[in-house]
């Protein structure tokens, strides 16, 4: 069984399809092969989890605070804009 799946999609190929999979860009058949492979392959399951972790962690880079000085400067610009 696993050998048959292995012949369908190798780990080496799967790692190139991860973003297409996340983006829902695989054909129905490719998608089926992808998921079948992941079901039977621990290494690829871990790989997929790592790629998801990368996306999640990158999202946390957006958390940053604004300095009071810059906010004040922008508010001044806003008031000036209102006067025009």
């Amino acid at each position, binding site marked *: 069984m696993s*050998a048959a799946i*292995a*012949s369908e999609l*190798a*780990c*080496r*190929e799967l*790692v*190139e399809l*991860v*973003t*297409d999979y996340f*983006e829902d*860009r695989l054909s129905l058949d490719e998608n089926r092969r992808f998921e079948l492979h992941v079901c039977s*392959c*621990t*290494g*690829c399951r*871990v*790989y997929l*989890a*790592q*790629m998801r*972790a*990368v*996306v999640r*962690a*990158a*999202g*946390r*880079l*957006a*958390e*940053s*605070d*604004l300095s009071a000085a*810059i*906010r004040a*400067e*922008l*508010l001044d*610009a*806003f*008031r000036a*804009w*209102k*006067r025009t």
Partner: protein
Amino acid sequence: MVGHVEPLLSPELESGSSHEPSWPHQRADASEGLLIDALRRGDESSFSRLVDLHHTSMVRVARLYVATAAAAEEVAQEAWLGVLQGLAKFEGRCTLKAWIFAIVANCAKSRGVRDRRTIPLSSVTQEDDGGPSVDPERFLDNGHPRWPGHWSQPPEAWDEDALVSHETLEAIAAAMAQLPQMQRAVMTMRDVEGLGSDETCQVLGISEANQRVLLHRARSKVRKALESYLHEGEVSP
């Protein structure tokens, strides 16, 4: 128009902000329309909220185009004027964020024309290194009798606590800074700023297919860098 401020709107917006999800991958919601209406009337607290929501992102986007952090800050400030001037024309066909980013990109580019200091976003093909996402050494040969192309050195699960540490975030930021420019731009838009693929293509002026290739290369490289970082101390090839 200027004196037409509705103070009642601000508390509403404030209460909305307390429910703001920390997860950045959120699309425009109904409060965005209210915010824009209030801004058009010159409501200062709405502007202040908009600054909180977008300014640091705008600097990050500007930084994709200009060479220094100081220049990026200036571009973002200039872009705010463009945002205010353009508000009357904003049609809501994309999210406010994507619209603002497009203005930032334009300001950054025109600044580059003025002082010749922007980094031109190179064409996709120029930086398309075409290498594999994972070191080929980690897979068995395609000629392997039983497991062709399967992992010989499979990845190991990452420690969840290590993943959320400040140091790990810095490692990710450092890995992204090493990416070729367009890859960094796409990953910044998609994964850091949470734009959709359509919006990312619009802001960067690339096709959906290119966008996906760039995103894949970027994420794969950052994963690889993070793997090395998290397994630091172990023998790595």
